[in-house]
């Protein structure tokens, strides 16, 4: 019974990890940028939610659209006016650029939002669905569903809309896409905007279950890393699966081996997948595989 509870906990946690990973994976798959500032961008969403809650008591779930839109704009601008300037450079140059951005954003938040740990506790926090001995906290369940809905919506967007198709086309072959009239600068910006927006939403949800401060940005990015590697780059359903796997692996290893080993196991798993199946558990040959 405890085992079942642990697995359920893992799945609920995994939903959140999936959402963190989706945006990261999308940006990486399409623009070939490993965005080390992903966690910091997610925290921008978290702070927006926090201040809306504190100042006008806006429920975190209701601030999701606001996070989405404002962080989308932020990400769009960032890609359009900064990242696009170096996007063709060697990969470690991009890596350092986003790390520089991370340092900047984290310190910016520390300066203006302070290094205090914040958390949002709405009145319904702590209520749980109890089935026999199994306890399912409503907030975590709701967070889980929001994450899954976003994942599905994202997948539909990429498959069904013109913009989505243009993004996919660009990720497959940027030159061919250009020749069919797609402006990659714009597509990259939209992709980065979307990735950031989803990160922002995950930041919003983060406020409900944890305490956050600018200093946790790096940890969030690392989770996004693992999720995208597990699932395969640029694949929404892959990131969803990767998130769930990571959640369950964490809680299970914590239960079976010991809480303090869970990070080691999560990272070990990532390295293993990289070595054995670099395209990810659900990855197919194309997308990022061809790009080095």
């Amino acid at each position: 019974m405890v085992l079942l509870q642990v697995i359920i906990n893992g799945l609920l946690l995994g939903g959140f990890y999936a959402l963190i990973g989706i945006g990261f994976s999308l940006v990486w798959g399409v623009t070939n940028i490993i965005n080390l500032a992903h966690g910091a961008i997610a925290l921008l969403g978290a702070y927006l939610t926090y201040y809306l809650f504190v100042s006008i008591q806006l429920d975190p779930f209701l601030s999701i659209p606001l996070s989405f839109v404002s962080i989308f704009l932020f990400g769009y601008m960032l890609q359009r006016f900064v990242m696009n300037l170096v996007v063709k450079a060697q990969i470690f140059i991009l890596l350092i650029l986003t790390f520089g951005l991370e340092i900047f954003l984290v310190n910016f938040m520390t300066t203006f939002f302070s290094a205090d740990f914040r958390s949002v506790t709405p009145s319904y926090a702590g209520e749980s669905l109890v089935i026999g001995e199994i306890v399912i906290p409503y907030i975590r369940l709701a967070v889980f569903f929001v994450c899954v809905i976003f994942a599905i919506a994202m997948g539909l967007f990429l498959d069904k809309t013109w913009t989505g198709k243009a993004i996919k086309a660009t990720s497959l072959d940027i030159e061919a896409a250009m020749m069919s009239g797609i402006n990659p600068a714009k597509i990259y910006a939209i992709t980065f905007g979307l990735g950031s927006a989803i990160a922002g939403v995950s930041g919003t949800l983060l406020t409900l279950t944890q305490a956050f401060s600018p200093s946790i940005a790096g940890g969030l990015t690392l989770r996004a890393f693992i999720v995208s590697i597990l699932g395969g780059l640029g694949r929404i359903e892959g990131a969803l699966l990767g998130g769930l796997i990571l959640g369950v692996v964490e809680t299970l290893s914590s239960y079976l081996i010991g809480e303090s080993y869970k990070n080691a196991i999560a990272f070990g798993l990532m390295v293993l997948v990289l070595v054995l199946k670099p395209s990810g558990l659900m990855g197919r040959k194309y997308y990022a595989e061809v790009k080095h």
Partner: protein
Amino acid sequence: MKRIIIAVILSISLLFAVTAFAEEIVFGAALSLTGKLAKEGTLVKNGYELWKEAVNKKGGIKVGGKNYTVKIIYYDDESDPNRGAKLVEKLITVDKVKLILGPYGSESVFATSAITEKYGAIMVQGGAAADKLYTRNFKNLFGIYTVATEYMDDIIELTKGKSPKSETVAIVYSNDLFSTEVAKGAKRSAEKNGLKVVFYQDYPKGTQDLSTVIVQIKGKNPDIILGCGHFQDTIVMVKQLKDYKVNPKVLGFSVGPTLPDFVNSLKGDAENIFGSAQWTMTLKYKDPVFGSNQEFVKAYKAKYKEDPNYHSAGGTAAAVIFQRAIEKAGSIDDIAKIRAALSSFNEETLYGKIKFDSTGKVTGKGMAVVQIIGGTQKTVFPDYVAETKPIYPKPQWK
């Protein structure tokens, strides 16, 4: 190009220009003003600044009939102990400062005190509680925090003789230096008091999920749950304890309940949680500079528009003790005399009655226990400083 050269020369000369003027007593501090310890570092700095203003308003530190204006040189160690060590070396060798006010954080104090010791400078610190600091036979390090292994003693003490009786205890801790020592001490103290430790488990520093640990604790159904970690994990733990309906008689934390953000973050869920405190606003101690602890609190609120906590009070207290020792020693630069004055120190300050043992750590100060009652923290233990009686056992989650 010319302008660049001029700029470089200017900045270099600025660097060397920082020398002490006559009639000034200069202290140095390398604190974490950015990075992961920025919050605590800034609070300690606030404490130092408040003390400086208070002393200078009174005309400065009086040594040998002469008044010296206090000046403090600050550097930011970016929450990196190595950088802290480098900056303390800068304070000592470049700025020629030998009176060092400590940084916040055990790692930082650890690294920087090695430098002060090497150069024969002296450090008084109100920012680190690790026992390990005092096992190195250092002569020139004095600390006013009750050490980590004694952190939980008073919470456990508090449960004695209460009914219904608490018999089992679960201890979880973050696997960093400070928290591990706290947990070790808590375990020892619990066993000494006849409690059975049914769960003892560490978790990675800064973890984002503790559900597995909590499910396991639930299986043990302990009377007392003690969390030895930091603010972030404490919040996660409270939220998840409530999620999974774990209801101990006592829920106590080493770090968290004493910080104002605790109630802001958790709202009603913070109710009745215990916390160990180096210091609280309501302690009734006298103080040589501010008059009393209450006066200190008032001055702090006036200057910073917020309540002080034990970080800032620790900063102020460390500086006050430093000042009193210098005045007693009758010298602003004879380190041996100042050290002797600190070794024999025995005075009441806003932080409590301060005495140091031969290793430089404070003795007999003890910890206050606070409980969140009605959305504010109340000092509930020990009895002679308590504002009100503790609520025991803790009511179930709403």
